[in-house]
């Protein structure tokens, strides 16, 4: 199953990824998944301080634990409405 990982808006542009999957093993928390993609896509570092993290469609702090089947999302401050 793995963990579904989503990027939106400028973070999708920075990674070139909208949606992907990672194996759950080796990722203790949401922040570790961000770190993984920031290493592969250095442009993502620019967004580290402003990015919002979501776990299963709810805002989450980076240290929230993740497990197989979770959906994790990274995105900039929202601008809808």
């Amino acid at each position: 199953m793995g963990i579904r990982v989503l990027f939106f808006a400028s973070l999708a542009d920075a990674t070139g990824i909208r949606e992907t999957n990672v194996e759950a093993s080796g990722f203790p928390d949401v922040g570790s998944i961000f770190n993984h993609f920031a290493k592969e896509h250095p442009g993502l570092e620019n967004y580290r301080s402003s990015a919002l993290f979501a776990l299963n469609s709810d805002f989450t702090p980076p240290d929230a634990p993740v497990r197989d089947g979770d959906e994790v999302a990274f995105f900039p401050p929202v601008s809808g409405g």
Partner: protein
Amino acid sequence: MFLLIRDPIDVRSATDKLQRPEDGAVVVFEGVVRNNANGKDVRFLEYDAYESMALRKIEEIGAQAKEKFDIRDIAIIHRLGHMEIGECSIVIVVASAHRGPAFDACRFTIDTVKQVVPIWKKEFYTDGEVWIEGAK
């Protein structure tokens, strides 16, 4: 009524569906695409969303509005995708017996939507495009 849609929002239809004989006040907020932003001419907009979370957050805000204010019902409709100048990106309709809570709930709702609903606006100018980040 909480919706994310890709077609133009029919404000009148939303209002007609919401209104009941016991309502004395209807307050409607329409967010529309304007032709300028930050001193630049805007040609059109695109709205992107984390749809499942956005809909969930919109439903939560609607429930909060009904809990915090003495209103009977509320509709929040956000459009996604490409929008031309003058088109409506969001419509909030609040129906209640009296006007005070309807105004308060409508304003609370649009302010909160702009803070917490994962939707992003991209502005297209004559000389480029920019993701807008953060609410105003």
